[in-house]
């Protein structure tokens, strides 16, 4: 492996930081320079992240692993790596960030420097969360990206931005501090003197304790996802955030919740996870239906998209709760899909907002005739969002529903109801906004997509298509990791199931080797 | 030894009685006088406990210097009696404090009475021996630090009280 490959993940994390520092040092007035620099750094990051895909092998286990001593006194190391679960999420992050910067090129017109800096820092934090292999490191990134997001919402958001920013911050912070305590307790009880994920996974935790630890972690992740009933921060944050913020928030941040379950909560506390799976499944389905129903009655475009996120992520959680290989693959895939389609939807809503400074559905109507290109893109993304076959959304939801069948047919049926509802609210919205006669005279002079906007949207649309058609290209990378996770959890939980018959010695041999445990 | 004990209880009674006056008086001037009496009684008790030097020092430093300063300030500022009627909240607070302190004192007193350390071995309790300990290296740091303490107090007091610097 080349030097670059050895340090690729670190480069990916710190390249945006370097960019942020460079921009922070530039003069306040040179705004264009700052924007260009931001774009250059984030695009470079994306390009480099593609190297990950190229070098990735379709096997389970961590790749591109990098370890360094950090705080040896506590067994904290700087450990990063990717596997199938995180690979695409990293790419998604690096992919969406330049687009978000490009998309808000003109809509952000004040304090540009800070905006770009925060965006890049946010990117670094998000990548860090996805690649961290050490609980401490994970937590650091997890919390660290709160701050830039908080500023993005609070400074460049809309009318109730401060309320939304503080709410966002406090909700997620409250959730994550409990996770921190859980980590500390785990560290103590495991007694391995290390925060390394693999090492901790290999150290068994008393199931009674696991329940508490799992709940603490799950709370943090559930808030982030957000799972019903912890979702109340999300509509506020999404609606009040600037376009770029919404895109990143929906596109990447929410994924961190689901990813947290897969990477942290389930492997560390498998027994508890299995025990709580039904609850999660039920909540997930409630989220699907609730989100869809609420979205149905939203008069505000952005709110509608926001609630659709609640529904979509319900699918993700359902797949995770089902805990079959197919379901997990579907969940990860659905996370990517949601990132692309909802990201794109937020872009589109933002572009409309830039033109009309309103997001009320009732303000629009018959836009198809005025801005045809825009309409076309919107339509395609909508189809992706409602899981139209041929688009990426379909693959994800299908996998999830199939994978969840063994888990609970009832829930699958109910979730399918959610699919139909999604079609309902999206299409109804499309109808009201684009079809019919232009009702509002203010809309008559709206310009169609600019070249820059097209440049933002085209990759998204293309990807939505591509992922719908060539899904195996993606899923085959996810599968080994998902499979390994399922196997590992089953191995761990089986002795517990048999525990009523008597103590069964845990399979020590396999646990001693972290790599083994991962598989 | 009989005489010692009698004197001890007499002066202990005087000390407590005058201490009660200290905290019971509304006129700070009387409190100050009562405190002087307490201090002198305690000095006598120091003497009875075999520390004549400390007894004398108590009078020199406390009664002869510190209390004079208090009286001076009382005279300089012409301090009046405290207002007669404290508010209800204050009275409640005082009641609570009184009760609390009483309970604690009873508890602590019981502890103190119960814990009798081993009887003292024979030792030379002269002032000379005490002075040797005072100037032993063990207390050297505290001793030298004391000079800084006094200096800091000096500077602080001047800074606070002097009209113009």
């Amino acid at each position, binding site marked *: 492996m080349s030097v670059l490959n050895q340090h690729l993940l670190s480069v990916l994390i710190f390249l945006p930081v370097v960019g942020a520092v460079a921009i922070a040092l530039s003069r306040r007035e040179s705004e264009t320079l700052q924007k260009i620099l931001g774009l250059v750094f984030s695009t470079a990051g994306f390009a480099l992240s593609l190297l990950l895909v190229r070098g990735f092998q379709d096997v389970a286990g961590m790749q591109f692993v990098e370890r360094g001593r950090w*705080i040896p006194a506590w067994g904290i190391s700087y450990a990063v790596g990717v596997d199938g679960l995180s690979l695409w999420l990293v790419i998604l992050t690096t992919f969406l960030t330049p687009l978000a910067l490009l998309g808000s090129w003109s809509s952000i017109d004040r304090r540009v420097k800070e905006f770009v800096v925060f965006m890049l820092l946010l990117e670094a934090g998000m990548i860090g969360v996805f690649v961290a292999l050490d609980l401490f490191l994970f937590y650091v990134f997890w919390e660290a990206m709160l701050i830039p997001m908080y500023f993005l919402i609070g*400074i460049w958001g809309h009318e109730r931005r401060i309320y939304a920013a503080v709410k966002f911050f406090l909700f997620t912070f409250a959730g994550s501090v409990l996770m921190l305590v859980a980590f500390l307790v785990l560290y103590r009880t495991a007694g391995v003197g290390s925060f390394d994920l693999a090492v901790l996974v290999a150290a068994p935790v008393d199931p009674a304790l696991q329940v508490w630890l799992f709940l603490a972690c799950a709370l943090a992740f559930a808030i982030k996802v957000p799972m019903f009933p912890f979702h109340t921060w999300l509509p506020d944050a999404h609606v009040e955030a600037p376009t770029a913020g919404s895109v990143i928030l929906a596109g990447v941040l929410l994924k961190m919740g689901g990813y947290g379950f897969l990477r942290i909560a389930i492997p560390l506390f498998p027994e508890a996870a299995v025990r709580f799976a039904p609850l999660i499944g039920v909540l997930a389905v409630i989220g699907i239906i609730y989100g869809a129903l609420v979205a149905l009655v939203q008069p505000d475009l952005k709110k509608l998209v926001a609630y659709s996120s609640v529904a979509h992520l319900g699918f993700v959680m359902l797949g995770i709760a089902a805990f079959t290989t197919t379901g997990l693959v579907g969940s990860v895939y659905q996370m990517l899909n949601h990132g692309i389609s909802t990201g794109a939807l937020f872009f589109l809503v933002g572009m409309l907002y830039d033109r009309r400074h309103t997001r009320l559905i009732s303000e629009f109507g018959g836009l198809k005739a005025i801005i045809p290109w825009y309409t076309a893109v919107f339509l395609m993304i909508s189809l992706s969002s409602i899981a139209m076959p041929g688009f990426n959304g379909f693959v994800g939801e299908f996998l999830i529903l199939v994978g969840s069948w063994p888990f609970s047919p009832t829930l699958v049926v109910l979730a399918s109801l959610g699919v139909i509802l999604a079609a309902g609210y999206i299409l109804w919205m499309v109808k009201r906004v684009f079809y019919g006669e232009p009702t509002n005279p203010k809309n008559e002079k709206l310009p169609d997509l600019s070249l820059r906007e097209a440049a933002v949207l085209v990759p998204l649309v293309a990807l939505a298509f591509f992922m719908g058609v060539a899904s195996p290209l993606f899923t085959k990378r996810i599968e080994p990791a998902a499979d390994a996770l399922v196997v590992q959890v089953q191995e761990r939980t089986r002795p517990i199931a048999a525990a009523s018959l008597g103590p069964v010695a845990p399979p020590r041999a396999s646990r001693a080797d972290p790599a083994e445990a991962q598989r | 030894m009989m005489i010692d004990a009698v004197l001890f209880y007499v002066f202990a009674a005087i000390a407590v009685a005058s201490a009660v006056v200290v905290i019971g008086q509304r006129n700070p001037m009387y409190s100050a006088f009562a405190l002087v009496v307490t201090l002198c009684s305690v000095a006598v008790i120091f003497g009875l406990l075999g520390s004549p030097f400390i007894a004398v020092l108590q009078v020199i430093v406390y009664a002869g210097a510190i209390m004079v300063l208090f009286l001076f300030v009382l005279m300089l500022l012409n301090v009046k009696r405290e207002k007669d009627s404290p508010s209800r909240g204050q009275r409640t607070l005082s009641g609570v404090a009184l009760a609390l302190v009483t309970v604690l004192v009873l508890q602590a007193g019981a502890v103190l009475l119960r814990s009798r350390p081993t009887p003292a071995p024979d030792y030379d309790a002269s002032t000379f021996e005490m002075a040797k300990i005072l100037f032993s290296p*063990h207390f050297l740091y*505290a001793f030298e630090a004391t000079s800084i303490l006094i200096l800091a107090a000096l500077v602080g007091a001047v800074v606070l009280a002097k009209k113009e*610097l």
Partner: protein
Amino acid sequence: MSGELDLRPLVPAIIVGVTGLVVLLAQAFTPKDRRAPSAPLSLTGLLAALAAVWLLASGGGRGAVLANAVSADAYSLFFQALLLGIAAVAVLLSPSYLRANGLDRGEYYALLLFSVVGMLGLVSSLELVSMFVALEIMSIALYGMAGLYRSRMESQEAALKYFVTGAFSSAFFLYGVALLYGVSGSTSLDRLEWAVSTLTTDSAALALLGAGMLLVGFGFKIASVPFHMWAPDVYEGAPTPATALMSAGVKAAAFGALLRVFGSALHALAGEWQPLVASLAVITMVVGNLAALAQGNLKRMLAFSSVAHAGYVLTALVASPGQAGEAVLFYLVVYGAVNLGAFGTIAALSREGREPLSLGDVAGMAERRPALAAALAVFLVSLTGIPVTAGFVGKFYLFNAAVTAGWVGLALVGVLMSVVSAYYYLRVVVAMYMRDPLGEDTWARVSPSATVALALSAVITLVLGIYPAPVLTLARIAARSLL
């Protein structure tokens, strides 16, 4: 006798003390219309003392000297370096503030240096009386500093309240010392440790009573609830750089002594006092944070926050001395840097007797003073305990210690209260970054020395948040010498 008279451990304190004398004399002999070079002198002295600490440390430190009264073990060297650093930063913050408020007198610096002498003594004493004298030096000098703002009634009130509570707590401290002396026949910590480990039930009760009273005395100094009521008034009324020193230095020094007494000398009684400390920690965190929520005045808010932080630090005390030591030491470094920075920012903007104290005063700061706002934001984020700032690592360490000792509940209260604290810290950030400025920017230009101080604090806050390992290692070495 000469063997015992190894004065090297005292060299830093001696340097600082002598500097204080020089500053005082310089002030006395400077004509009325001229200004004494107090700040540079003080800074030189503090840095020289810092160098002395470094030399001592590179020489491997010293054990107990002066018949077990004082030591320059790693523990005290660590604290001495910390306290000298804090004092140096406080000195850097002072000149512009003092000039802006017409308080520019050498006495201020002299008192500051004397209080530092006290702090140094407090952390290096192995003996309760030396400790007490040191405590008093520190306190008395600070009473003077708190009341220095002679034209302002608030300042005098602050001095009075600080004094009354301080004197009251000293008496408690002393009675505690007396009782422990009654138990052990000595005030040396090592003798005490020995005596405490061989107690009968009756004398154990006595020792516990003494320990409790000692705890009350320390409780006042670290401003833990219910002994905190002075803190907000004093922090508000005192000149701001003095407040910075008070909040960072006093707390560090008092915790240094507290840990030495309770962690090592009285450790045999840990089973008895730990629940007490734990409950103190809980009420301190809860009351401090909830009270801070209600504050509109920045200095008061920071005061209550410092109360709350005393609670966080107390949580670590339930751990074994070694681990508690590490955590507390590291946290005090962090806390020192952050609080100096936070109060320093307020002080640096002071002009003509005014300073930014309300949220309205800092509104829109990010657009007018981006660097300053960023620095203050870093400090506040660090106080909240969010990663990549040192505050996070510090809290992590503290709560880790509590959890390791099996007190998960304490850590839970701690983190939940951190969430509460996020609300009031963020309010300031919101004002600076998300609100529009009110009126003209009439605050002072930040002087070069204050810039250095603030930059230093901010850099330390960030660096320790990202790469704490070296300081952690030092803290561990230092804490180990406590055992």
